[in-house]
């Protein structure tokens, strides 16, 4: 019998590496370890318990909560019975939850605690199909007397009885599972419209897990931290897929707040995080360095400077002089080693990041202290893996080469990235129209992302396909790509770029008050307000230098060299979600901004050097006011003889 489902893989692991750790959870301040054989026993008991509570093959079971062994076990127990686990984001509100549970026709929910049960009770009013609730943590549950709410301990008790009465039931149920069966529904958060339920089979998840385990040489003694939401495909693939395939140990942190401490205690060998987390860690390092003594600060600065010079080269096994190597070794002893230890990354062999663009400075910081950080590009629809940066071929601005078994192509007209692999999802649940739109008959999936393959054969993602336009000079214009490049400069908080259907690109920028203010104080530039600071010629000069740096970068890029930024303006106010200029997740709302700042945009494409701008703003207490200012427009130098077709 080949192990083509997770319950079968669990059986295999319990047989082959029974006493080895499968999952840990920090509880009451202590890491509690569960071995593979214990895990199998727990899963078997829960599966019996679920069966005793009436769960049948094909039923949908919601999993709601933080990463906990009990929830992972419930997921696999459901799969053992042929039921379909539907993990949902634990922090989603009741209405969001209601949509998913109704859409997936969930009848049974396993949740972490009282908070989730309260939410489920609220959802239940509009979701009659939702019949039974189970909770893991009994705290605060004493007075819930509804007969359809059970503790997981009760389920386990019932499971033990059921097992005694039905010997062989579990094995028979597991044996009925097939690789082509549905493993789970994962709902994508979806920036537009309702979330879509991505249907993934065991074949999808296991093939991608096997591919990545082999490609990245993942062993059964790896330690990972299972801290990302269970409803996210990455967690499903890392903490269940790869974990079950390779047989390594996943560690569940004590709580979301203790994540950094837990990271340090576990010292994972294999770590994944979105760029945001790496950014936060780096910020806290910098803040704490500023609080430390002068000697330490000097040591840190000196050796970090050296790491910046040779660290990445040493990591990439390039040629580095003996003296520099020795100095790097000293740095490892005094700075990098202790720093990595504090961050919990001493044992890390692989670090991945994905999800959005990572700032080159952040990326280089981690790589320069010897962490093998790599980017990957993936989607729920692909069971994560589409591309991955191979060792020694790592660049801050690409997402790597197609993984083995993944076919990749870029549509020449729309520049949209398409892929095909064994990991490609079965369908969107109950949404044939979207399925047809996304997945072609012969299995190619439209990512919705625009990109191109660069001279190294690496995929570069530049923007959402629908936002990509063309300049009048024929060059591709990808607003988000430019904006990200701009935002990586510390002085620039937000940027909005224009260029589709225009003669040249232009940018509207709001400065970072903290960073620029700090700089102004150190350079004797006096100012009283954001508006005044943003209008200072000195500040314009600094930003112009940033923009010209971006232009120089773009000039090296054959596809984008025509999209260099010719003119820019600094806004007199911060772009703000309260004013509707940004979404709550801080994404630029282009259409709205185009209307609101049309005067500025006209000026960017006109010849005047100043424009009067008036916009309505909303204060935090809901009152409205008008913010007006004269905004200067400045030209920036273009690099490398970019073709500019100036019309008129």
């Amino acid at each position, binding site marked *: 019998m080949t192990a083509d489902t997770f319950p079968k893989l669990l059986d295999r692991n319990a047989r082959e590496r029974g006493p080895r750790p499968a999952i840990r959870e920090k509880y009451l*301040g202590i890491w509690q370890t569960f071995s593979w054989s214990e895990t199998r026993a727990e899963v078997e008991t829960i599966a019996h318990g679920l069966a005793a509570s009436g769960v049948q093959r094909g039923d949908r079971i919601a999993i709601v909560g933080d990463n906990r062994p009990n929830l992972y076990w419930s997921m696999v127990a459901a799969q053992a019975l042929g039921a379909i686990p539907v993990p949902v984001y634990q922090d989603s509100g009741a209405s969001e939850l209601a949509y998913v549970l109704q859409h997936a026709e969930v009848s049974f929910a396993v949740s972490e605690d009282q908070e989730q049960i309260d939410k489920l009770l609220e959802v239940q009013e509009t979701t009659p199909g939702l019949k039974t609730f189970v909770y893991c943590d009994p705290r605060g549950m004493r007075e819930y007397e509804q007969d359809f709410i059970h503790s997981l301990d009760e389920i386990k008790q019932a499971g033990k009885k059921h097992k005694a009465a039905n010997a062989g039931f579990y094995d028979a149920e597991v044996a009925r599972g097939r690789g082509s069966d549905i493993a789970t529904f994962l709902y994508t958060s979806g920036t537009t419209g309702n979330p879509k339920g991505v249907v993934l089979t065991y074949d999808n998840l296991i093939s991608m897990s096997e591919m990545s385990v082999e490609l990245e040489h993942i062993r059964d003694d790896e330690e990972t931290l299972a801290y990302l939401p269970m409803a996210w495909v990455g967690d499903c693939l890392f903490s269940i897929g790869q974990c079950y395939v390779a047989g390594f140990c996943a560690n569940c942190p*004590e709580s979301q707040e203790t994540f950094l401490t837990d990271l340090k205690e576990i010292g994972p060998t294999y770590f994944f995080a979105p760029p945001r987390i790496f950014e936060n860690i780096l910020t806290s390092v910098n803040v704490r360095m500023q609080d430390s003594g002068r000697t330490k600060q000097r040591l840190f600065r000196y050796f970090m400077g050296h790491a910046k010079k040779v660290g990445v080269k040493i990591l990439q096994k390039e040629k580095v002089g003996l003296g520099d190597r020795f100095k790097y070794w000293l740095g490892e002893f005094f700075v990098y080693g202790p720093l990595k230890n504090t961050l919990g990354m001493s044992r890390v062999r692989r670090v991945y990041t994905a999800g959005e663009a990572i700032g080159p400075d952040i990326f280089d910081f981690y790589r320069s202290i010897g962490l093998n950080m790599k980017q990957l590009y993936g989607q729920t629809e692909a069971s994560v893996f589409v591309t991955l940066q191979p060792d020694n071929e790592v660049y801050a601005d690409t997402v790597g080469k197609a993984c083995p078994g993944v076919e990749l192509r870029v549509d020449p007209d729309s520049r949209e990235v398409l892929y095909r692999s064994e990991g490609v999802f079965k369908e969107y649940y109950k949404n044939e129209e979207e399925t047809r739109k996304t997945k072609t008959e012969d299995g190619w999936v439209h990512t919705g992302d625009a990109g191109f393959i660069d001279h190294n054969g690496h995929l570069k993602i530049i923007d959402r396909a629908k936002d990509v336009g063309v300049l009048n000079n024929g060059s591709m214009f990808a607003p988000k790509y430019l904006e990200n490049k701009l935002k990586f400069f510390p002085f620039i908080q937000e940027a909005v770029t224009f260029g589709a259907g225009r003669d040249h690109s232009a940018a509207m920028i709001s400065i970072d008050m903290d960073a620029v203010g700090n700089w102004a104080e150190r350079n004797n530039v006096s100012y009283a307000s954001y508006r005044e600071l943003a209008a200072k010629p000195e500040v314009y000069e600094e930003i112009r230098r940033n923009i010209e740096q971006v232009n120089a970068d773009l000039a090296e890029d054959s596809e984008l060299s025509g999209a260099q930024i010719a003119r820019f303006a600094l806004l007199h106010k911060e772009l703000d979600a309260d004013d509707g200029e940004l979404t709550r997740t801080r994404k630029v709302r282009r259409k709205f901004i185009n209307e609101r700042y049309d005067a500025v945009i006209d000026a960017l494409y006109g010849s005047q050097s100043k424009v009067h701008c008036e916009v309505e703003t909303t204060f935090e207490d809901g009152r409205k006011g008008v913010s007006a200012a004269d905004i200067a427009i400045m030209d920036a130098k273009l690099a490398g003889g970019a073709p500019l077709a100036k019309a008129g």
Partner: protein
Amino acid sequence: MKHSERKFGDTLLKVDNITLRFGGVKAITDVSFEIREKQIFAIIGPNGAGKTSMLNVINGFYHPQEGTITYKGNPRHQMKPHEAAETGIARTFQNVALFRGMSTLDNVMTGRLLKMSGPSMRYYHNKLANMPVINYLTYPAMWFGDFLLDSLYWGPYQKEEVAHRKAAEEVIDFLEIQSIRRTPVGRLPYGLQKRVELGRALAMEPDLLLLDEPMAGMNLEEKEDMCRFVIDVNDEFGTTIALIEHDMGVVMDISDHVVVLNYGRKISEGTPAVVQADQDVIDAYLGVAHEEDLNEN
């Protein structure tokens, strides 16, 4: 909703005709009330009404000149703080009184002191209060041996330490302060310090928990958290809680029974709804009664 339909147990603490004087000043005059098991009991009143004095009387910190305190059926004229602590009364303070240089975990562990049963510890809490220091030396062998074994973390001592650590960790888990387990409390924001203080009191596994203005100086979110913890403590452990609070919204929301003090006298008592409607209480808070007093004089 469920909260108001609750059933309470027998009388846990009864104060009868308590009068407390500081020289010529009467802080409390002839106040009586009783707190029943599992109740959330609130003492409210304007500034200087004698609320904290009342708590100090219950806790044995102040000794009233008149009246009796009956705790768990034992009437006594006055209590000593250590007796109060030993018999299951724990408290928090209006101004946080933690060991600022110690971590959250260590602060919570200090709440376990009275539960520690090693010979030296038993000796500590039985004798410490009444004994001149010199008497320690009469038991040097026991004291030193015990101390040594305890610090070596060996045998039964290890087992005991583990058990107490577990209890402390349970409190930490309950109050959701895992992320500050190792942080010196002096570095924590005020709201969290208050939570740690509650944690230390809970580590004593008290029967009666006295909270002196648990929400003072907190922002709305911190207050909501604290309310939830107070209710949860009461629900989960069945702890009787007596609290002083200025925030009327909080008091009316969470308490089962309210006593109102003004100028050291009890002016009203009952459920929150009853107290809220009482004209004397309204007057005391708005200052009307005060004005009339002046006129009469």
